[in-house]
């Protein structure tokens, strides 16, 4: 359903439920690639400045339905896609994405939208060169999240779906659905599964091995001064170093 990569660049993405450790891993990967003098760009889920005010307002007022939530997240993605990810890939940059279309396929279908419909909505995007799925048992995910944050957020916990009265129970049911959807995508999209319960260092070694393979014999855009990339989109161009806060929801 996703287009083959027709650009000179390389697209590397990480996926997984909240608390799976994927942001930590992509952060370390970014630093490694940057240190090698590669041209690297980082893009985070739900970070378009253009769509931010709408999402924030709608979340606060609880205006979302599963469909409008899904379309607006895709709008956010499309803005990043059209203004930074795709042009940079064309130029030969390595683009790292913390969450990609698969997040939408997992969450939106978990909310009840049609799987074929949401896949088609993202069909302007390309199949990543490397797609890593960080898998952890639900209890570990919940433990990591509740240890780092005061309270689960309304949509994050799937409270809009009336699955349970309290947020932790609802979160558990909703994350279970998301986990099922991710598992279905392993074969469908050729996701590489990484065991997110392994030590951070061990995981990173695996990740770097996979990426090294994917970049073998490939040059990409030169970066003689080891500089970081800025784009017309004034969004964060480097992952935040904080392991404990968790990424964008």
């Amino acid at each position: 359903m996703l287009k083959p990569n027709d650009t000179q660049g390389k697209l590397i993405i990480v996926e997984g439920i909240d608390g799976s450790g994927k942001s930590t891993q992509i952060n370390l990967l970014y630093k490694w690639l940057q240190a090698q003098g590669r041209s690297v760009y980082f893009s985070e889920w739900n970070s378009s400045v253009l769509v931010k005010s709408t999402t924030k307002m709608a979340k606060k007022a609880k205006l979302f339905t599963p469909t409008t939530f899904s379309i607006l997240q895709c709008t956010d993605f499309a803005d990043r896609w059209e203004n930074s990810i795709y042009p940079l890939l064309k130029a030969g940059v390595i683009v790292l994405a913390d969450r990609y279309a698969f997040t939408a396929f997992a969450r939106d279908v978990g909310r009840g939208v049609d799987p074929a419909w949401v896949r088609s909505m993202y069909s302007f995007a390309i199949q990543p060169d490397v797609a890593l799925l960080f898998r952890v048992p639900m209890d570990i995910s919940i433990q990591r999240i509740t240890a780092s944050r005061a309270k689960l957020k309304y949509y994050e916990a799937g409270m809009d779906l009336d699955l349970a009265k309290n947020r932790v129970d609802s979160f558990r049911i909703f994350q279970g659905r998301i986990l099922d959807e991710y598992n279905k995508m392993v074969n469908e999209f050729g996701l590489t599964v990484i065991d997110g319960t392994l030590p951070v260092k061990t995981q990173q070694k695996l990740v770097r091995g996979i990426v090294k393979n994917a970049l073998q014999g490939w040059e990409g855009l030169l970066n003689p001064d080891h500089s970081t990339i800025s784009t017309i989109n004034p969004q964060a161009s480097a992952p935040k170093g904080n392991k404990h806060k968790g990424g964008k929801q």
Partner: protein
Amino acid sequence: MSEPVFYGAGFPYRKKHKMSGKLIVLEGTDGVGRSTQTKLLRRWLEAEGYAVSDTGLRRSELTQAGLNEAKKGHTLSPITMSLFYAADFADRLENQIIPAMQAGFVVLSDRYFYSVMARDCIRGVDPEWERKLYGIALKPDLILYLKADVPDLVARLIHGRGLNYWEAGMDIHLADNLYDSFVKYQTELIRAFDSLADEYNFVTVDAARPIKDVFEELKKDIHQVLDEAQPLAKKPK
């Protein structure tokens, strides 16, 4: 009462309640008199005792602020813009149109997603992609396509609200001035509408005639659809 019919999957997570209302869409390019006719039709339908709900593009609370802001800066790329409109559409469909249809209202929609498809098509958005995106859309009972050619539109707009940046398609740089750009853009739009008219079974109405004549024809077409209907909800007092 009938089962709702969608172009595609619709909203699988919603219960498929029967609908006793009617969805009537007015389509057509800018300046063709849609809003005027919508107002007249609403007044007429209410006088006939129907409960009427009207809606139109960009009226959703969800996306209004974002769309306005984006239009100010002209920073939206084609797919992003298209999705913003789709969010607006979905929000009105789920929160306004479908509930009104279930309650037996006549829903008058000043444009539907066809207008968005026409404008996106000119901006290079993949029509197949967009057709699938609007698989969420409810099939209208009647789509009235008000059609006038470009010289008529120019005459109306210049004596009315004037030519504007977006209606002239100035964002896609077709010409260096508002008039030439308007002519080129609206010509393209009409071509796009004509092909949608075949695909989606529009009823084409010649809108180059006086307002009153157009109104009479629209009434006739709408009457036919309403005659098939079960008794609809009465206008709330």
